[in-house]
C-alpha cells in the first residue's frame, strides 16, 4: 500500500475518529441504539482498516495476538464476574440493583460493566478472526 497516498492519509485521519465513535456507541447503549456488540465490531473495523492500509505486521505490533487472546477471555470473565459480584452482594445472578446505593444507579452500573465486557470480547474475537484469516 506504499503508493496509495490518499488511502494512507485519509486512514490515518479517520482511524482515531472511528475508535472514538466506537467508544461513543459503546457507552450510549442505554440511551440510544448501541451497546457492546456494535461497538466491538466498529472498534475491530478500525483495527482491520489499519491492518489493510498499513500492513498486518504493524497492527500486530500494536495489538498483539496474545493480547487479543487474553482480551477475549477477559471480557467474558468481566461479564460473569459482574454476575458473581451481584450474587455475593446478596441478590440473584445479574441482579444489577444491588450493585449501587439506589436500584436505578445499580442498573446503570451493571449494564455499563456488562456491555464493557461484551465490547472487549467482541473486539478481541473479531480482530483475532482477522489475524487468523489474514495470515
Amino acid at each position: 500500500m506504499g503508493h496509495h497516498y490518499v488511502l494512507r492519509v485519509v486512514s490515518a485521519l479517520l482511524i482515531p475518529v472511528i475508535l472514538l465513535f466506537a467508544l461513543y456507541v459503546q457507552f450510549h447503549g442505554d440511551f440510544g441504539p448501541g451497546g457492546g456488540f456494535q461497538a466491538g465490531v466498529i472498534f475491530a473495523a478500525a483495527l482491520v482498516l489499519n491492518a489493510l492500509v498499513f500492513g498486518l505486521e504493524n497492527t500486530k505490533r500494536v495489538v498483539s495476538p496474545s493480547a487479543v487472546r487474553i482480551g477475549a477471555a477477559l471480557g467474558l470473565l468481566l461479564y460473569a464476574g459482574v454476575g458473581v459480584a451481584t450474587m455475593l452482594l446478596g441478590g440473584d445472578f445479574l441482579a444489577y440493583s444491588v450493585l449501587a446505593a439506589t436500584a436505578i444507579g445499580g442498573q446503570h452500573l451493571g449494564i455499563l460493566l456488562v456491555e464493557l465486557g461484551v465490547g472487549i470480547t467482541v473486539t478481541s474475537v473479531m480482530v483475532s478472526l482477522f489475524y487468523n484469516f489474514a495470515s
Partner: protein
Amino acid sequence: MVEQIGVFNYWIVIALMMTGLYVVISCRNMVKKIIGLNLFQGSVFILYISMGKVEGGTAPILASDFTSYSNPLPHVLILTAIVVGVATTALGLALIVRIHDRYGTVEEDAIQNLDREV
C-alpha cells in the same frame, strides 16, 4: 386480497428462507453453502424484526410525547441471533480454509471422490 398484500413482509421472509435453504441443499461448493446459510438466517431476522413493529409506534425509547412504542424485545433477540450467525459463518469459513489446505478443493463431489480413493 388487500390482506395478502398487506403482509408482504412475510412473503419476503418466505422467499428468502426458501432461497437460502435451496442454496444450502443444492450447491456443491462449500462457500456457496455458507452464503445460503446466511440468506436463510437473514430471513429469520426479518421475520422477528418485522413482527415487532407496532402500527403507529415509535422507536422504543421512553419520551414524554409518545404513548405507543414498537416492541424492543425482538430487536434484542435478533442481536443475539446475528452474533450467533456471525460466529457460525466465521467457523464455517475457517473450516473451509483448512479443508482447502488439506484437500486442495472445496467442491463436495471432489472431496467425496478423494475420500473414496483412500
